[in-house]
């Protein structure tokens, strides 16, 4: 597991049915591009988060393929419609095979 990887998400706790809400996400990750060289001139191998997916109650909100041009600590902000109470599921996929997940509940009145 890449070290120091920790997902953070910001989702409102409540909303009205059908509301558009704004979600912010950030995962601490070095996003080593594979373009850099170390002190001895050897290429540092690529190690990035390559995919980020957000679902709500099993329906997709956003599904992103990331390339090395995404900055360190990948950040995404986007909107979502919430038809009913439920759970946002956030998943990040690492080059090294690791998968990082987090979830947030939202209560819809």
């Amino acid at each position, binding site marked *: 597991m890449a070290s120091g990887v*920790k997902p953070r998400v910001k989702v409102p706790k409540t909303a009205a049915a059908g509301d558009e809400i704004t979600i912010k996400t*950030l995962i601490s990750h070095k996003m080593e591009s594979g373009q850099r060289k170390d002190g001895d001139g050897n290429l540092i191998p690529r190690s990035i988060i390559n995919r980020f997916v957000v679902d709500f109650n099993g329906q997709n909100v956003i599904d992103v393929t990331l390339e090395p041009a995404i900055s360190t*600590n990948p950040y995404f902000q986007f909107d979502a419609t919430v038809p009913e109470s439920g759970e946002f599921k956030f998943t990040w996929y690492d080059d090294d095979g690791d998968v990082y997940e987090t979830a947030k509940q939202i209560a819809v009145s």
Partner: protein
Amino acid sequence: MKRAKTYAGTLTVVAAMAATTAFADADDDQLVVNGEIEMVTEAAAPEHLEYVDTVYSGWRFRSDETQAFQMDDFDNPAMIFVEKASEDWNKPEGTEGKACASCHEDVENLKGVRAVYPKWNESAGEVRTLEMQINDCRENQMGAEPLKYTGGDMAAMVGLLSSVSRGMPISVAIDGPAQETWEQGKEIYYTRYGQLELSCANCHEDNYGNMIRADHLSQGQINGFPTYRLKNTKLNSVHARFKGCVRDTRAHTFKPGSPEFIALELYVASRGNGLSVEGPSVRN
């Protein structure tokens, strides 16, 4: 001959400044963090400043996009490191089995500390930076190894302490027993170093608001430290930045944690008395 040279130089400066008026001086933006912490980014200069009337936070010299990073804690990548430090805060270390929290409990209890450092320590008979005080706690209270002065763990811990003081006015004491160190720092601030023969004042007092190549010079205030730089995507400590500046004058630099940089930090901090504690800030 000498006069002609100076005249030509002045013309170039005037022309260059006219071309970059869009960048001149600090902007008029107001910094409110999380919609609740109102920061003072412009203040009347403290009395001891002889050549500057108004002091500005470095935030006011940055582009709107860079400024936005600091206006919400979620958008501020420095908070990743602050979160890590809040975990360290509760983690027992060393022979005494103590964590920071064992004595200080909630980190909020140290609200205000960042605003008055560097500070004279009576029992030690020296001016201490926050980093020195943290390592004193680690070595003498916890029985733990000191953290590297400009290392990531240290910058994060200073960032955590700074975060709970955000919005409070910087107010370091420069009189009494601290005065001698402060005078030493002032001496360093106005001394030209390196092959480029530049003092801190040449850039940050004489030329703030102007462009140095493509970079917009600030007053070099340190109220926003530690600062997350977009350049290196980590938290940077005051002494690491000092080292970078002195290196850029093509000089052998003082070491982080050295008496020279401690004195300089006290002096530079005092130039920002009245500005808000902003750390951890975001800069380019």
